[in-house]
């Protein structure tokens, strides 16, 4: 059943586009028409040493892509396709793959190892390829097998471990894999290629080795081999060994104490003198230890008084502190000449500074005396590297130590830093701006007793910052960030007036000038400037700044209007337009939301609403196929702001809303559009009715789609509730579609894997949204057609009961559940009497809610109690 496909595979790589497209088409057709035969043909191609390497290589790649994909939905589909193939075909393919591991052609071997792992990823969890591990291990234990087979077998084992979870193997298999791998890592056993492959395989197998790490003898042996490998002759092997150490630091933190001295020697030598890639991993080791200890400390804080049950904190950072900090400070002096130009640079000095920051968060005040002498000794040196390193060190330790410890230093250092914004070296200025922004982020708290900013120094600070927005883009960007945090400090300070207000017109005009810089768009400076503007507006005090922001509104509107008329020639032009419009819509959204939240300022939005809406519609019209997420977000805010008046925009706007609801690919756009439906329902109430057929159709399609990102689905259920509450009895015709979806989703909630935190979160969101949907529908029908929900009451009660017995539900779910309970009693009255008598769980659940610490839950529960009492009191 296999076909000869060498020609197609070769043609598919042809330089001639026609030949290439034709061949690709034929391959695709073959794949669609007969997948088993297609995969078999590919494996045959890959396994045949007489075939050209080019076609074998492509055969391997196509095979891999037929088994696995990044996108999880597609990945699942591919796996299902494979599973459904006839077993004899699958066996043949697997046989061919395993035999290819022994091929004399290196590339074919490697590719085959990867494909084997992809098949293993599907089959091993299903227990459908039990003989694989044994067969691979056979290659390792049989002395007669060639070294090149052992090499690729180790690779294959590594890849397989990467694909599967440790639940999928029995301990004996794990033991044998580790034995084979550790043996492969030993010096002199085989050549360096095998040693590298073995070390990488160990990295992937570490997660499987819990039992082995619990056993002291085995652990000693593994650690001994890893540490020996960390000083291998070949830098690549050393790097791989350090990667293993990093992984061990986080996975087996609690048992590595005995090895810490050795590891410190190894990492310290590597940081001082090894190649950058190795040094970076050595620093990463310590960063990982910090991560573990910070997490332990947070956990202990959280669970204080419960010391017995917490994992041990070994204080590795604390013990190594006096040696570790100088080592890290040394790294800060190893800057690259152009590191600030390029966002993708990651070097020893950055990794060192990052680690220093983590150390500060781990040990707090104790780091200060170890770092400050370095700062003081270097900050005035003529060499820019010294000044930059000193500033970076200072900036790195601003989080962790107490405010009391830091405040005096920052107070006395602030003026110095402000002066340093005029340093002759841009790296120094860049790091200084970053340090200032961290100071404002972490230590600027106007409502606390220790306040950095006074009316006297604020003018000086802003003078320097605003002047520095004219500096080179990367410095100016960090200055924007400093202004962002400076403004943020006043957001929740409880005062009605802010020191910043008198400077606001200046700050705003400066940020707009910065955003307009011709060199701003490439370096993200434009984005930083507008995002800072947003925060400045968000944190401004209303009403005192209302006139200033009122003045800003037309400025932004004019800019958005101009952007619509940009001449678009290249795709770059288009991209630039889209990006700028996104930023400007963002600012408008922030202003609309700010002004809509108080009665005094609402009028400004109402007045400008027509013009704003026209602009948004023009922005939508700029793009033919997709809608603008930012414009959509802003329209939601506008609908909230103008209320029923929004109705007049609906005829124009509706088609874009539909486009948004159908945008499966950019799921954020879809999610935002769903949110806007809610805003519109609340704004228009029953006036939204004419649009509901369309809206509901799209929402139902979205729910049934496998393509759409699952995170959008809970908001859609909540949105059902919004629609139902708005249109009341008119929701009747959608019930027959909506209810089965809600019941299906409730079913899914019951089956969610509770060992997966992320899935638990999702399950909670889903439940809450289903409850919100029921609440909206029950309330919507309450006055006119409550009986429509009577047939569903049992299911709703069962669902609430199920959720009420799940101790891992979050508070929002509880709140929504107890509310539905009341809505049910309120809407159905005496009809639910018998049901409630059969579902006595509700009294215990209500009792729990009434004792909750959450006032809203208590309030809702006592209302619900009243509704139930009332349902019982009604005759009938």
């Amino acid at each position, binding site marked *: 059943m296999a076909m000869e496909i060498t020609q197609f595979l070769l043609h598919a790589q042809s330089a001639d586009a026609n030949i290439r497209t034709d061949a690709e088409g034929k391959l695709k057709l073959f794949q669609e028409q007969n997948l088993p035969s297609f995969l078999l043909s590919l494996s045959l191609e890959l396994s045949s040493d007489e075939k050209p390497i080019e076609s074998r290589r492509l055969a391997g790649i196509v095979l891999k892509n037929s088994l696995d994909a990044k996108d999880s939905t597609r990945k699942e589909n591919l796996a299902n396709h494979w599973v459904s193939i006839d077993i004899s075909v699958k066996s043949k393919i697997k046989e061919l793959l395993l035999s290819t591991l022994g091929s004399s052609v290196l590339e074919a071997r490697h590719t085959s190892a990867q494909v084997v792992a992809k098949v293993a990823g599907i089959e091993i969890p299903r227990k459908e390829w039990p003989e694989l591990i044994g067969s691979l291990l056979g290659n390792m234990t049989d002395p007669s097998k060639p070294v090149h087979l052992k090499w690729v077998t180790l690779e294959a084992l590594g890849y397989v471990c990467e694909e599967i979870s440790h639940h999928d193997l029995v301990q004996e298999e794990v033991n044998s894999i580790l034995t084979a791998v550790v043996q492969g890592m030993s010096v002199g056993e085989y050549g360096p290629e095998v040693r590298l492959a073995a070390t990488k395989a160990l990295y992937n197998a570490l997660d499987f080795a819990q039992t082995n790490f619990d056993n002291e003898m085995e652990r000693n042996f593994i650690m001994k081999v890893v540490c020996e490998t960390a000083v291998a002759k070949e830098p690549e092997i050393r790097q791989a060994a350090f990667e293993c150490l990093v992984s061990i630091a986080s996975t087996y933190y609690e048992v590595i104490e005995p090895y810490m001295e050795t590891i410190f020697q190894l990492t310290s030598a590597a940081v001082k003198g090894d190649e*950058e890639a190795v040094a*970076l991993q050595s620093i*990463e080791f310590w*960063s990982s230890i910090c991560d573990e200890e910070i997490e332990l400390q947070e956990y202990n804080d959280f669970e204080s008084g419960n010391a017995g049950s917490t994992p041990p904190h070994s204080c590795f950072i604390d013990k190594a502190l006096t040696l570790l900090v100088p080592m890290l400070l040394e790294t800060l002096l190893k800057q690259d000449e152009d590191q600030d130009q390029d*966002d*993708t*640079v*990651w*070097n020893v000095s*950055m*990794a060192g*500074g*990052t680690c220093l*920051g983590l150390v500060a968060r781990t040990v707090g005040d104790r780091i200060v005396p170890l770092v400050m002498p370095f700062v003081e000794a270097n900050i005035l040196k003529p060499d820019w590297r010294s000044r930059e390193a000193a500033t*970076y060190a200072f900036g790195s330790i601003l989080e962790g130590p107490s405010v009391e410890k830091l405040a005096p230093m920052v107070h006395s250092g602030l003026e110095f830093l402000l002066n340093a914004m005029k340093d002759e070296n841009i790296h120094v200025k860049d*790091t200084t701006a970053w340090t200032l922004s961290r100071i404002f*982020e972490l230590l600027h708290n106007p409502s606390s007793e220790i306040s950095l900013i006074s009316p006297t120094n604020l003018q000086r600070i802003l003078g320097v910052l605003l002047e520095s927005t004219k500096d080179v883009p990367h410095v100016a960007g*960090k200055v924007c*960030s400093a202004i*962002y945090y400076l403004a943020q400090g006043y957001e929740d300070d409880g005062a009605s007036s802010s020191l910043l207000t008198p400077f606001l017109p200046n700050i705003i005009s400066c940020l707009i000038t910065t955003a307009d810089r011709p060199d701003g768009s490439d370096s*993200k400076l434009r984005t*930083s400037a*507008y*995002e*800072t503007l*947003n*925060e400045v507006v968000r944190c401004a005090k209303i009403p005192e700044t209302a006139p200033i922001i009122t003045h800003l509104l037309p400025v932004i509107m004019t800019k958005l209007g101009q952007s619509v008329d940009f001449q678009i020639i290249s795709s770059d032009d288009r991209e630039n337009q889209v990006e700028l419009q*996104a930023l400007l819509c*963002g600012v408008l*959204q922030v202003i609309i*939301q700010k002004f809509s939240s108080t009665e005094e300022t609402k009028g400004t939005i109402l007045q400008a609403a027509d013009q704003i809406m026209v602009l948004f519609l023009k922005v939508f019209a700029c793009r033919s196929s997709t809608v603008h997420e*930012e414009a959509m*977000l802003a329209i*939601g*805010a506008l609908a909230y702001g103008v209320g029923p008046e929004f109705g007049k925009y609906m005829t124009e706007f509706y088609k874009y809303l539909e486009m948004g609801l159908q945008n499966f690919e950019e799921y*954020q756009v879809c999610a*935002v559009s769903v*949110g806007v439906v*809610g*805003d519109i329902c*609340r704004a228009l109430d029953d006036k939204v009715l004419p649009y509901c057929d369309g809206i509901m159709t799209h929402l139902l399609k979205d729910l049934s789609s496998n393509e759409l990102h699952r995170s959008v689905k809970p908001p859609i259920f909540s949105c059902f*509730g*919004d629609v139902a*509450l708005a249109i009341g009895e008119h929701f009747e015709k959608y019930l027959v579609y909506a209810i089965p979806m809600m019941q299906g989703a409730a079913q899914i909630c019951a089956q969610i894997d509770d060992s997966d935190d992320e899935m638990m979160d999702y399950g909670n969101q889903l439940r809450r949204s289903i409850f*919100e949907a029921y*609440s*909206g529908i029950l*309330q919507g029908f*309450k006055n006119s057609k409550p009986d429509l929900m009577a047939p569903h009451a049992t299911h709703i009660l069962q669902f609430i009961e199920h959720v009420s017995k799940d101790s891992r539900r979050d508070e929002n779910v509880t709140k929504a559940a107890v*509310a539905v309970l009341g*809505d049910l009693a309120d809407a159905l009255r005496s009809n639910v009497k018998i049901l409630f008598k059969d579902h006595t769980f509700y009294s215990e659940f209500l009792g729990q809610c009434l004792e909750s610490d959450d006032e809203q839950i*208590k309030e*809702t529960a*006592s*209302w619900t109690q*009243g509704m139930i*009492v*009332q349902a019982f*009191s*009604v005759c009938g």
Partner: protein
Amino acid sequence: MAPHELRRPFKRPAISDQQKRRDLSLIRQEKNRLDAQRHARFLASTVLSLQPPADSEIITDSNPSPEQEFELVEEGIEALELDVRQAAKLKGTEARRWFAKQLMLPEWMIDIPDRLCHDWYVLARPAGKRCFVVSSNGTTVSRLRNGTLLHRFPSSLPSGARNKGNSSSQSYCILDCIFHELDQTYYVTDMVCWAGFSLYECTAEFRFFWLNSKLVETGACDPPSVYHKHRFSLPTVYNCDQAGLHASYTQPTSYVKDGLLFYNKHAHYQTGNTPLALVWKDANCSQYVIDTDSKGQILDQQQVVLALQENGKLTTSDEPPVEFGCLDMEFIQKSGLQTGDLLKFSVSDRGLCFTDGKLEKADIQFISKSNRARAFADSFSKIMFQHMVRHSPLQIEDLFASITSSAVKDKEVTDEEMAD
């Protein structure tokens, strides 16, 4: 080398505003949704809450301080959320104004409701001060109909005293009472909230059932003690059939009677004037059938209190108001009267003329501004009742007759059905 994915943000501008905008939008939408659903949920039970003052509102205090007035308007939105616990903290005019609006005000019985014997309860009304009793946070407060404070005292009501661990702020009670001076007892005529649980939305049938079962349990009906300064008591509530009406009208009570109170069994507790609770009296069951002056002397002529509207019209406290006449602007200016003032008038003998039950002409004479303690103008039913008392009163015999005839009618209906 590519930056470490976890560590990268350290020295980069950390601000990503787009996600923040999305998140803030979501938070706003979530809040709006909760508010919308919450609003729908509490719509019917927000009777407890403070309505923003209407422009034409009648106020007790003829000269409210402008500052207080402003605060109340400004707090309009929050004030809607205000419940009785917060209201308990209100002071002065605000408190009076708030509480004055919380009571259900029975209309005077000027004709007999259909189905009196099926749908109604009757009880002998104790003579005394109608008041609202609120227990919360370890204290009990009673307020008169116009909102002024009567007593502040410890009681055995839930959260009514600081003695036992019952002072949870959640667990407040609101009772509709009449304070009977002679035995210093609060006679409970209705229950509005019990232990934090609102009964506004419950039928009278349920409220009385609840009242009977809960009040005794708490010890509120026990004799006074240190933590229970005033006794509470329950007037006997009867079904309004022959026996019930007879008992309430003739049976001796521990208190001085002041007429009969009628409650429609299916009616919810509704603040303000309602025809679903009625009061009736005659000389046998009340000392005060015809209005008296401050010395207890029956007035020669009926007096009425009406509210002055912007256009000079004089209206009752009903919703919608009933118009009784009009003052000319010159007179208003000359007398220094203001919109919203409550004015006292005398009604000349046979001064009210009706056509088909509707007021056609009222012959009334201005006397003076009303007493400052008044919160409302008279209701239409009160004026009518007083008018009828003086001319052609509704008598107890009429009530009995209506019950008998209704029983006969029922029997006829049953007979007809059987004949079918």
